[in-house]
């Protein structure tokens, strides 16, 4: 398999500048420092053509920031993103328009990601007309095609978002992403806001589209059961860093990193009745002032002295299975 997307050494820091009061106070001997959020901290991974890669982590771990950098919405602080053998952006400006069109996103909230003042036909048709993929005269037929692909019939063309149910809105969002003929779809918590029975419909739709259009996915979710069902490979993130990468079988069959194991332990499952909820202690620390060494050490039941001092490297522990934990050596 060929690598479609290759991310190396990617980092993103958000710096909160001092306000004028703090700057004046500093002149008088205060020493207020700028706050830096290390949202994504030196991560590298590959996505092969035709693969579905699940990206899992709790809120604040940087998974959406990764998505935004790959789709070109955010400029990385450092590191590079190679798509089809070329860098996506150079010094803040995109290298090729086709690359940006080839990478599309489906968002979490189908209520806020659609313009409430536009009809479905305008929402889906706007980008392809703008980019010259279709002329205005043939737009309606073009849009109809993509609505059908997403499982909506033509009666929805002239509806407004508020006239649609949550599932129908998400299908509209998917049709909009497909309308510019992408190769790579980033689904950022695309099923999180939907009801259980609708989630299943949308997951099935993603699978059908993958077969029909030969798409590659980065499937971002905190829902491990959904990720297990759809992904070929899984990346687990914690506080801006990748802690484990492996095939779905490896992650769910023989998880290595203590954080991954804790996450799997917490998944609610239908066959686990009246269980005792075992608990990892504490909360995800703030990325403004993350713990030293391994970010997970304050919550880890196996932490040793070394974990506080040294950042563990992501190392191969089996074929295609990487984990960042000192205990592996």
């Amino acid at each position, binding site marked *: 398999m060929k690598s479609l997307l290759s991310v190396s050494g990617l980092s993103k820091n958000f710096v909160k500048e001092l306000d004028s009061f703090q700057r004046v106070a500093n002149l008088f001997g205060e020493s207020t420092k700028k706050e830096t959020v290390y949202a994504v901290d030196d991560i590298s991974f590959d996505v092969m053509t035709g693969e579905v890669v699940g990206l899992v982590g709790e809120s604040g771990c940087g998974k959406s920031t990764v998505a935004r950098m790959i789709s070109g919405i955010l400029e990385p602080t450092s590191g590079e993103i190679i798509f089809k053998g070329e860098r996506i952006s150079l010094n803040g400006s995109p290298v090729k328009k086709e690359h940006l069109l080839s990478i599309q996103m489906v968002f979490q909230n189908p209520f806020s990601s659609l313009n409430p003042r536009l009809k479905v036909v305008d929402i889906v048709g706007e980008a392809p007309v703008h980019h010259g993929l279709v002329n205005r005269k043939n737009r309606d037929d073009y849009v109809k095609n993509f609505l059908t692909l997403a499982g909506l019939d033509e009666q929805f063309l002239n509806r407004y978002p508020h006239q649609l149910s949550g599932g129908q809105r998400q299908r509209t969002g998917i049709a909009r992403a497909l309308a510019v003929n992408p190769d790579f779809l980033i689904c950022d918590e695309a099923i999180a806001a939907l009801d259980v*029975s609708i989630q299943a419909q949308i997951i099935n739709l993603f699978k059908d589209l993958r077969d029909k259009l030969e798409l590659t996915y980065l499937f971002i979710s905190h829902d491990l059961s959904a990720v297990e069902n759809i992904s070929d490979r899984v990346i687990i993130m914690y506080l801006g860093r990748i802690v484990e990468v492996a095939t779905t079988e490896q992650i769910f069959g023989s998880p290595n990193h203590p954080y991954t194991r804790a996450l799997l332990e917490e998944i609610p499952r239908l066959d686990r009745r009246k269980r005792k909820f075992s608990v990892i202690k504490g909360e995800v620390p703030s990325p403004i002032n993350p713990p030293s060494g391994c970010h997970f050490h304050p919550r880890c039941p196996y932490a040793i002295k070394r974990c506080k001092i040294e950042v563990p490297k992501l190392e191969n522990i089996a074929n295609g299975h990487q984990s960042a934990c000192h205990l592996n050596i």
Partner: protein
Amino acid sequence: MKSNFESSTPILKVTNLKTYFDTREGLVKAVDGVSFEIRPGEIVGLVGESGSGKSVLGFSVLGLVDHPGKVVGGSVSFKGTNLADATDAELRMIRGGRLSMIFQDPMMTLNPVLRIDTQIIETVLAHQNVSRKDARNMAIDVLRQVGISSAETRLKSYPHEFSGGMRQRIAIAIALINKPDLIIADEPTTALDVTIQAQVLAEIQKLCTMNGTALIWITHDLATIAGLADRVIVQYAGRVVEQGLVDDVLDNPRHPYTKGLLDSVPGNQGRNERLRQIPGTAPSLLNLPDGCAFMERCGNAQEVCRTLPSVTSSNFMHEYRCHFPIGVSN
């Protein structure tokens, strides 16, 4: 366990409860003839998708339905008191005292401009005849119970100084502090991360067992119910379509909707397999058909489904409302 629940008298008895919203577009029957009972110390999951009326059911029990909604029929009896006949003063004593609620968004419970000690102590003083100092000590105890460290100093904080998970713990602490007989929890962990959700579930499970508090856990997540509850009530389009012990309902669902919900849970099927989905979408509660509301999405539906099926009960406390129940020969 079974005989235990059977013998004790229910603390909450809801009979044929109807809550309708008279809107400009028409009559919305959010809760339409719902009956169930809760026994002391029991944990019951109330499952339904958005728009099934499960939250309105919770609000109706507490008498918190806002205009244009109105409880138009049925009764809610809590420890022998009919809440519909209770005066406002009596309701105030019951709510937050013997019967309390946890909401999905803790910021709905917490006042953002008051310190949390003020808010917790206020709850105690409203219902118990104790000194302010004792109330404060109770507040510290209850915060420790829900897993907030250095409770004494944290009491002086404002809600915005806590994380989402912490805030939900405080909301739970407030619901627990008067040792109620029943807590109604409306999707309290939906907005939380997986690890934090497990922490909150663990606390709630422990505290309910310790105090003998009954719990109604409203959610759309069947998997959470499986791990937490004794019994489950499945609601669809304002009606209870199935209820029974967790093991009975989850292992032998009788109603096709329950079966459909169970089948759509991703973890229940093999990797990379297509999920078995329920076709269509949930109906609008506006102008519902007289018959079975699930008919349009049901594979077994026939002409007779245009009439409302009556409630059938099979083995122990397992009830369902379907003309063609799964696994039962007619």
